[in-house]
């Protein structure tokens, strides 16, 4: 199977211009980017896709042993770049998707010009010895994995096409319930584990391409010291702290994310 099929790749925007490739994070799929895309549609080729195992990707391709390492997702991304014959691409990733984009850029710097990382973190785990304040203890993170397990039973109900308090049967809601955040519960659990226990500080420290880092000042998952760590340690990084609540500024303040990204891309 071609990577573009496996990962449900959608290409929109201009037919020429620097390609922007968007990588979503844990818990969702490519629909996360929908409010950001219009801002770039006139001047860029826009590529969105679902990580293997998420959204409408080929779930059977999610072989847990292989995807126990985030590097496998980075390889998938490089396969997509290769199949679409993209060069000088800008990779825009959210959260763990930013890590995946960074790993891909480190592996094939010749294919990537720059990175935009939205709410990234090299590691959620505290490391007192190294003075790294990731925000979470191992016990915290194990609790989350158990929690994902608990919500398996609710999973099918989440996907049911009836919507409380919403006009039932409308086309837009139908489409969303069919696709949004849809994944197999066993994969969600596995990917959750891989995501929250990933420690990619060394890869961030050896970033091969310049990057823009967008950090929310009120992010419950990524504390400010992590943003400071990245500003100090990631080569070629520009940190922009935006005033927003939560971990998903591309959804809560999409205009801000678009403007920051456009400024950064226009700057050189």
């Amino acid at each position: 199977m071609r990577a573009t099929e496996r990962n449900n790749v959608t290409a929109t925007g201009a037919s020429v211009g620097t390609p922007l490739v968007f990588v979503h994070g844990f818990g969702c799929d490519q629909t996360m980017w929908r409010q950001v895309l219009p801002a770039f549609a006139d001047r860029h080729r826009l590529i969105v896709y679902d990580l293997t195992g998420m959204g409408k990707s080929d779930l059977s391709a999610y072989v847990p042993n292989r995807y126990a390492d985030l590097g496998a997702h980075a390889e998938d991304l490089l396969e997509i770049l290769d199949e679409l014959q993209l060069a000088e691409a800008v990779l825009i990733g959210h959260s763990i998707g930013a890590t995946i984009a960074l790993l891909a850029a480190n592996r094939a710097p010749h294919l990537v010009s720059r990175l935009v990382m939205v709410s990234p973190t090299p590691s959620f785990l505290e490391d007192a010895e190294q003075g790294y304040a990731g925000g979470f203890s191992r016990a915290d993170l194990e609790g989350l994995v158990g929690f994902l397990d608990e919500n398996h039973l609710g999973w099918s109900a989440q996907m049911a096409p009836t919507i409380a308090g919403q006009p039932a049967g409308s086309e837009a809601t139908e489409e969303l319930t069919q696709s949004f955040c849809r994944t197999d519960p066993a994969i969600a659990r596995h990917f959750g584990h891989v995501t929250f226990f990933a420690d990619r500080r060394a890869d961030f420290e050896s970033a091969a391409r310049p990057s823009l880092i967008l950090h929310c000042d009120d992010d419950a998952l990524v504390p400010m010291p992590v943003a400071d760590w990245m500003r100090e340690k990631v080569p070629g990084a520009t940190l922009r702290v935006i005033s927003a609540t939560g971990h998903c500024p591309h959804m809560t303040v999409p205009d801000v994310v678009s403007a920051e990204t456009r400024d950064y891309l226009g700057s050189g």
Partner: protein
Amino acid sequence: MAELAQPRHLDVAAELIEDAPCGIAVTDPDGRLQYINATLSNWLALNARPERPRRRLSELLTLPGRMYYETHMAPMMRLQGYVREISCALEVEGGPPLPVMLSGVARRDAGGSFTRFDYTIFDARERRVYEEELRHAQREADELAAIVRSSPNAILRVDAAGRVRRWNAGATQLFGLDAEAALGRQVDKVIPFEDRPNWFTASVAPGCDGPEILFEAVHGCGRAFEVTLAPIGERGLPGEEDWSVILRDVSRRYAAEQHLRVMVDEMKHRVKNTLGVVSGIARQSLGRDEAAQFVSRLQALSQAHDALTATDGTGAELHDLLDFARREAGGAARLHINGPPVRLGARQATSLSMALHELVTNALKYGALSRAEGHVQVDLDIEDDGRLRLLWREHGGPPVVPPTRRGFGTKMIGLVLKAELGAEVSFDFDPSGFCFQVIFMPG
């Protein structure tokens, strides 16, 4: 709604929201709390720590719920406008976490912008216990199912009438028929065995005892199967029970056994041929009398071998050996036999047949059988301890004289029977008739 606008109804509505049997929370689109009803406030025991105000919905939850909120719920509220039945727990001041189910809906203004998010939160303590049991049962079922799924054996569930209800991948592999094609059909038609047309019905017919039924049969395609049937026993109603049917391909073992049988037959032939060749050599190498005696001993050995062959070499019936001896002695009139059937082991049969041959030969030459009116009486008795007593008594022969030297015969009888049978052996040279007795444990 217009009626509700009256003051009395407003009071009712306000009371309903405040004291609802569920928690109610309202946030702005960024998740900042705008309102918490009294029920939720009580559950959280917020009054216990007024100095720690909770600003956001996610702060009402335990840590995993907070992370889930950030990664799943907040995006879902924005993208699909609702979340439903999220299983999480409230962080209660000074108490254990309270399991809840959380649902939310996003409200928009006329322009489509989000105005607020409304959440209802239900106490899920009992539900959580039930779900935990359900998850446990499901895990267990999944594990068992994996064993059945990955087994190379055919594992079926069949109803009392023999119709296939479950058909695993192993069955598809072995019989080339997928589950869809097999389900609902009669198992003995789907899996036909040579010489066992209605094997299922015949096997499970009432009167079959034991907890499981086991047999081997050859399938229409030529492969051999070991078949195990066991009632599943969930309903406990005899005659309405489903059965588990497990079929294991034992063709290789079957083929190996077949090969072994051919080998054994071949070995029997070789033994007989070798004895024939040895007889031939003896006739050419020895004097006439000696050769005759030697060959007759070999014949006794050969006969013992024949008796063993009838039982695949595992043993022989003592009466078969005595029959050979009777023929040598000249028929039933000369050798009377009295006693129950006795099964001998292979080595016992060989040495005892040699001994009987020597006894007959001696009797013909010097004993009772050397006279026309003489005969031999053989009595078999099983003693209390299970040992066999064989008594050989000669009648009507010439007066008996004890031998001056022991010939091969006596030596053979004495030594071999003692060694091979662990037998008690005694000879009695009574002048009125020679007596021989051997006692040993048969089998």
